[in-house]
């Protein structure tokens, strides 16, 4: 049996008609993992035994008690904690860390009856754009195994694109759900800051981090966000707003929708093939009745430096808790407390994390605080205001998700500024805290291209509506796995 190319709705129908059991779906997922994981390497931990036991129990639940996600398989990024299952953050620092409770999002997917398959690879502490910064393994892009899957949720995107998981959860601090979604040809949503609880997410940059779903089509994505979103008394920054059933937004009707396209999003540095695909996508939206206008997002170009100062500052503070004392990596043979701190952190963290901690320590130091950190916060205000001004006149902002398609493995490791420049398209969204979705909109030289649709705070429903209308009008949905047996196209 091969179920990996089916959508959640199709599987749900099969379950409802008792044509397939949860156990069979789960076994099918692990069979797909066995087939392709050697090539893709998306998983850091596979929880096969637990998943099969969970599936057995779920098969006993009466049909009338089952929701839309019941019995469907999901993978979890390894910075989201899972009770009894190792959570490493892709770091030697947490190599043996087994949490004793579930993150709120994990609780919610379990309450929805989803089957958790395991933990997905990522750049160490979510710092990076390629998943090459994991301390354990390099995940490969299912479309071309010589290419990166993007980062830092590269494992989450690759697992969905390759058909190893129907759903996954990633985290997006500066584009880490959307950029890998674009590179792997899947749908990735970065919800409004506060829409999804961060309780149980290992913090990188607390004012930017947000958990988001990755799926192979828009409807599946909408269903998963409906399940995980909402206020949580464990996270006081989570919004106390009612969560709609996002599937109801998928009407296909976008007539009269006002779309802003910032000049900055299609400017220098963006690959010609990416520009061409996005322009084609705009024509599709126009043919569906949307009104497209070119606009300015004048402070977007300062997004990347603003992001690095703020993210590194917050990271240097958040990662201070890893000191080798309570849990995590602890070196052998230390003589005193001072040596314990230094050796734990020096041996436990990888180079990218050390660099960001150092830069954050510098930005927050007494000498630099006003000139660097506060200045960045002021620029953040201007970026946020740019978005607010545009949303007075337009419903959504559209552009590419990434300036290029997936890079070759190792290609940009020694050129960090190229990676940073790519962040210009995605990081302003995190700085403003608005939601954005990436949907596949084309392929160039065998690699997918992502279309980014950005909305005002808490307008995820509108984003799903636009993304779904686009998806229905085109032929780019559902990432086509090129690895393993049983390709679906």
């Amino acid at each position, binding site marked *: 049996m091969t179920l990996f190319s089916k959508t959640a709705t199709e599987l749900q129908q099969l379950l409802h008609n008792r044509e397939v059991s949860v156990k069979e779906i789960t076994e099918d997922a692990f069979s797909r993992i066995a087939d392709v994981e050697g090539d893709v390497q998306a998983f850091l931990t596979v929880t096969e035994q637990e998943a099969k036991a969970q599936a057995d129990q779920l098969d006993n639940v009466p049909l009338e008690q089952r929701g839309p996600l019941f019995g469907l398989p999901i993978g979890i990024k390894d910075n989201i904690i899972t009770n009894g299952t190792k959570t490493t953050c892709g770091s030697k620092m947490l190599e043996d860390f087994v949490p004793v409770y579930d993150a709120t999002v994990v609780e919610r997917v379990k309450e929805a009856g989803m089957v958790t398959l395991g933990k997905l690879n990522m750049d160490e502490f979510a710092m990076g754009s390629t998943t090459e910064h994991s301390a354990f393994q390099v995940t490969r892009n299912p479309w071309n195994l010589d290419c990166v899957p993007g980062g830092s949720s590269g494992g989450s995107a690759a697992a969905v694109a390759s058909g190893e998981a129907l759903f996954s959860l990633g985290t997006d601090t500066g584009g880490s759900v959307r950029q890998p979604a674009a590179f792997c040809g899947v749908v990735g949503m970065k919800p409004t800051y506060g829409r999804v609880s961060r309780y149980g997410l290992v913090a990188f940059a607390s004012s930017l981090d947000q958990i988001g779903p990755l799926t192979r089509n828009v409807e599946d994505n909408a269903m998963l966000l409906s399940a995980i979103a909402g206020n949580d008394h464990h996270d006081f*920054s989570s919004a106390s707003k009612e969560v709609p059933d996002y599937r109801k937004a998928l009407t296909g009707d976008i007539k009269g929708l006002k779309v802003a396209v910032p000049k900055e999003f299609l400017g220098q540095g963006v690959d010609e093939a990416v520009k061409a695909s996005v322009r084609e996508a705009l024509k599709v939206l126009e043919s569906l009745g949307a009104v497209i206008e070119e606009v300015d997002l004048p402070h977007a170009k300062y997004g990347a430096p603003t992001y690095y100062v703020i993210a590194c500052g917050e990271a240097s503070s958040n990662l201070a808790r890893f000191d*080798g004392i309570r*849990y995590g990596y602890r070196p052998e043979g230390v003589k005193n*407390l001072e*040596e314990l701190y230094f050796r734990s952190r*020096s041996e436990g963290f990888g180079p990218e994390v050390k660099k960001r901690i150092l830069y954050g*320590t510098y930005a927050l130091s007494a000498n630099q605080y006003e000139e660097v950190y506060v200045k960045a916060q002021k620029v953040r205000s201007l970026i946020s205001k740019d978005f607010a001004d545009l949303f007075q006149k337009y419903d959504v902002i559209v552009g590419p998700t990434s300036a290029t398609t997936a890079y070759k493995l190792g290609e940009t490791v020694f050129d960090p500024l190229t990676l940073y420049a790519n962040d210009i398209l995605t990081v302003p969204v995190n700085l403003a805290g608005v939601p954005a979705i990436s949907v596949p909109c084309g392929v160039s030289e065998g690699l997918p291209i992502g279309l980014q649709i950005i909305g005002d705070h808490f307008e995820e429903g509108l984003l799903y509506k636009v993304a779904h209308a686009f998806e229905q009008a085109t032929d780019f949905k559902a990432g086509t796995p090129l690895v393993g047996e049983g390709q679906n196209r």
Partner: protein
Amino acid sequence: MTHQFTKDDVFYYANFARIAFSDEEAEQYAEMLSELDKFAERFEEVDTTHVEPMTHPLHQINVLREDVPTEILDRDDMLASVKEHEDGMIKVPNILS
């Protein structure tokens, strides 16, 4: 405004961050940090006079939990991830050596 980091700068900030570097590593990190800070040069173009710093993406009022007892995690479970412990307490090396 951009800072050209030296090896000594790296040692200075690394000391606050409790990370040790060899001389050779410090040279490499000085270069990386200088590159990163060059990026922030662009801030010089932005007039931020009369702009309020933005510390949080949403204008929310902080909420405090009611002061009522709740269930806590099991101590033995929590200590399972601790490297060394004794009688329910975490063991650390001597502070004074």
